[in-house]
């Protein structure tokens, strides 16, 4: 398949779908989802290999700077994961993540970026299964969406 993905009005973005695989940046909280990822690996659960995991001490450490930089550098999706509400290692870090997430979402929407490209999910240390499922599900969704409009043609 060699369909060209083009912006509606101009031909700036023309990333060939051929050979394209989604690149996804995933932020994992040290205390939960990072261990969840470990669990998924130990249990030998099949997972897509498109995510690049970045460990952070708490989901609230993820700043808009990181998210925007990931997109501008060519990520097709950004996933943030953290402890379930009430379980944050730093009392209410993940509550703050939620507030931030809401604002960033609204902004991406205003820029015409599809909803699926930025997702937030709570995954605990024991939820290896959920971790693998989330990775697979998001990769599939982003694969369907195609390359991110932020992605430059030269980014591989």
């Amino acid at each position, binding site marked *: 398949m060699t369909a060209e993905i083009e912006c509606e009005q*101009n031909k700036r973005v023309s990333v060939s779908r051929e050979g394209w695989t989604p690149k996804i940046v995933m932020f994992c909280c040290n205390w939960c989802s990072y261990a969840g990822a470990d669990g998924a690996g130990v249990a030998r659960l099949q997972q897509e290999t498109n995510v690049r995991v970045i460990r952070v001490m708490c989901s609230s450490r993820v700043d*808009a*700077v990181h998210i925007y*930089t990931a997109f501008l550098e060519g990520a097709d999706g950004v996933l943030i994961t953290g402890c379930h509400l009430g379980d944050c290692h730093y009392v209410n870090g993940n509550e703050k993540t939620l*507030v931030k997430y809401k604002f960033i979402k*609204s902004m991406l929407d*205003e820029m015409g*970026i599809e909803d699926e490209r930025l997702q937030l999910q709570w995954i605990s240390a024991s939820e290896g299964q959920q971790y693998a499922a989330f990775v697979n599900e998001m990769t599939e969704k982003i694969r369907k969406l195609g390359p991110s*409009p932020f992605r*430059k043609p030269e980014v591989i």
Partner: protein
Amino acid sequence: MTKVKVGDRLIGWSTNEEVRSNGGSGGLVTAVFAAALEKGLVDNVVVLEKANQFEAVPIITDSVEDVFNSAGSMHMLISNQTKYLQQFKNEASIALAVKPCDMRGIREQQKRNTIDSDKIFTVGLNCGGTMAPFKIREVVESVYEVDPDQVKGEEIEKGKLIIETFDGEHHSHSIDDLEVDDHGRRENCRYCTVKIATNSDLACGNWGVIGELSGRGTYVEVMTEKGAEFLQNAIDMKFAEVVEAPEKGTEIRGKVNGVMLKMAANTHKEVFKPIEGDKLEDLRKELENCIHCGACKEVCPVCACGVDAKCNKYYDPTDDYDISLYHLIRFLHLSDSCIGCGQCTDVCPADIPLTRLYRRFANPVQEELDYMPGMDDRTPPFFLTKLEELE
């Protein structure tokens, strides 16, 4: 007359005939400032010192003389009272006249602890909009066919911009007509939704001044205890006189405001009509001439970050991103707090319509949260720790 109290609606003027006739409408504001200085209620007053009919600079003074000389409204002056005030770091008590957007900036800075509300006294001037001085010079030349240097004064009356020249002639054009060619008020003023500075200590304006007082008095609504105290002081010191505002005047003031707000809503619809096509590409195009001088941040009345801010620190020109990280961060950080004052557009050397872009991101957020920065005492939503607090 009984003592002035919060909620009073009065018509006032200066007892000094010269101030009264030079003032924007009756010189009450000048009288209140002068009386406050004289009595020692404040150490300083910020007034405008005119360079010419099109330009003036804010100066800080403790001389009653300077205050008297400053009477008059300048519709073509886009002062940035918030930023001007910030530089004094709360070291002295200061009184100043503000447009509604200036006051919104001040209130937001108070929330960010850079301006101490106990140290300032503000008189809000109703504002139907300001015009950029350079643009008006052009208009005076091309539309009014008058030499800009011959302009003695300017006045807005009944939707008309009247230019008075030194030879005593009056030249007038309807502002609506001027605005068709973008020759009138700044764009952000045309969709601004705060025309009466109810967020200040005293809200003053000429709307609602009728009959023989028309042009010789100012309608004042007392908003705070401090406002009542300062106005009472001016009356006690015989600097000002007031009468109860007639009901008819209050009605007219409300009506005119209503009409202005309706017009603003229409402009809003026009300016922010949904973008057809690729929104991201549209944004990229708008920003492509940005030279990252940082002037928009420098003048932003709600930004309290200083130089060590995320938007500056993480932006690197060698990244060569499609859209600058500097603006993306600022768009986000201002989405809850942008007051739409237009200062960023004014200073942009690359002529990027920044205010429009900031508002594009701020409108949906502020609407959804029913939060009006500078008019609302709540913590800026972005600073909240719990999502439920947003609702």
